[in-house]
């Protein structure tokens, strides 16, 4: 009896300890970055607790787009050259399946629940809605010319699509599965990022070296912010206070204060930076350096590069690529 009570008490403590442990240490240890290496035909998996490459996974030819799906249990990588998506199982770090899609699947995004993926087709001017489990294309939605970056707003049930060659962003109502607005932005928008509250959308304009800021309530373009030459992608920190933009031709990242709407710092990174993402706790900023096959790990507080890790030739990582 006494022993029973003791055991029960111990179990409670153990359970509490485990809960605490998994909520803190364990969660951090699990954050992984998936970097598509476009000219090495593989994906580097980086453990962000150790800042080390733990695996390289072969996927299709010239992988480009990345999305974290199913609450971090699956990762989708697109291969426009093979007209396929590759689904990686995060637990085993192996490709579990691939799905043929359109003519040039590039940008990809997943819903939080993770059963649906949205894939922009560079050549077909549309977005495919894919049921990952059933491996089936449910619908395709016509958007603008050369669609690239995608971002989902779960609250408003919307999908935003950057149409690089129409200089616009298409707004898709996910319930109606159709375009409800097209907003004109700068010259050649490629990457997109959304503020955590969903109120501001940022379109990175490659040719005009700027970021267009869109109010998602009025669906109006508020202003354009100047960044570096040939900017590509952007990410907002989880606190919604800063926007980080990669500048391909300047080998740098522009940091914009969102309250003041102005440039506050420029961080030097590796050659030709493309994909950019931030950890769920907002501490680490990861930049894929296409020109030198590496990633820069930046402390988001000090804005200093803490480490540069070799990945593979042509590191692209276009999309959200860090697991929660």
């Amino acid at each position: 009896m006494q022993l029973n009570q003791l055991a029960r008490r111990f179990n409670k403590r153990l359970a509490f300890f485990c809960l605490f442990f998994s909520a803190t240490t364990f969660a951090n240890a699990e954050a992984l970055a998936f970097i598509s290496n476009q000219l090495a035909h593989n994906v580097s998996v980086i453990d962000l607790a150790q800042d080390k490459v733990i695996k390289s996974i072969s996927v299709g030819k010239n992988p480009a787009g990345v999305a974290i799906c199913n609450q971090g249990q699956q990762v989708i990588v697109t291969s426009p050259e093979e007209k396929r998506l590759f689904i990686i199982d995060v637990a085993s770090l192996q490709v579990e399946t691939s799905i043929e899609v359109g003519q040039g699947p590039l940008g990809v995004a997943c819903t939080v629940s993770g059963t649906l993926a949205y894939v922009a087709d560079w050549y077909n001017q549309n977005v495919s809605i894919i049921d990952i489990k059933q491996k089936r294309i449910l619908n395709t939605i016509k958007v603008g010319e050369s669609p690239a970056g995608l971002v989902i707003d779960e609250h408003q049930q919307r999908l935003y699509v950057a149409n690089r060659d129409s200089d616009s962003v298409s707004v898709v109502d996910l319930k109606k599965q159709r375009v409800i607005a097209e907003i004109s932005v700068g010259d050649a928008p490629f990457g997109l990022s959304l503020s955590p509250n969903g109120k501001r959308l940022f379109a990175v304009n490659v040719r005009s070296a700027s970021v267009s800021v869109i109010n998602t309530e009025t669906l109006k373009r508020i202003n354009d912010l100047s960044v570096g030459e040939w900017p590509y992608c952007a990410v907002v920190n989880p606190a919604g206070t800063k926007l980080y933009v990669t500048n391909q031709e300047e080998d740098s990242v522009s940091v914009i204060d969102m309250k003041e709407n102005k440039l506050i710092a420029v961080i030097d990174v590796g050659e030709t930076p493309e994909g950019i993402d931030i950890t769920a706790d907002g501490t680490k900023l990861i930049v894929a350096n296409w020109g030198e096959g590496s990633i820069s790990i930046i402390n988001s507080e000090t804005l200093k590069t803490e480490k540069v890790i070799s990945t593979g030739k042509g590191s692209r990582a276009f999309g959200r690529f860090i697991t929660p």
Partner: protein
Amino acid sequence: MKKIILSCVLFALSNIAFAHGPTRQQVEESIVINAAVADVWALVGDFTALHTWHPAVKTTEMKDDKTRLLTLGDGNTLTEKLIKLDSDSMKLKYKIIDMTTIETIEFAGRQIKRQTLPVNTYSSTIKVEAEGDASKVTWKGKFYRAYMLNPPTPEGMSDKDAIAAITGVYKGGLENLKTTLEKK
């Protein structure tokens, strides 16, 4: 009707100019030259001097202080713009902004331009580093193939053709740069 066809052709051409569907490629070549870095950089870092050491380039004509028109041995031209000249780290970065159209061919129902080099959206960096008493020159380029639409690609416009052409430009240039500097 003719007008409609013409506008369709123009529309197709405008798409070709803007799209960049294929995968971007990289080429890197380097050479070690038995000369002091200052001497090597004096040549490599001079944006107006490519014709003095690159065997394929006949003349350099400056259009403004950041734009050069290179005329090659075969008469075709390249217009290049200086992006960044960094004398401290001995790096020079530039991009191609225009080329001669050698011919216009019809392929898959579209008008396609064949130009001086079979590349698109080309930018390049050339840098000099000390290697002991010698110097190492590294030339690195990023570009797309000439044909920006879905494969199949017209003859001479594939990824392989683009890589081979740029590799040739770099190797030929670097070898002659070495010869020129080591003669001094």
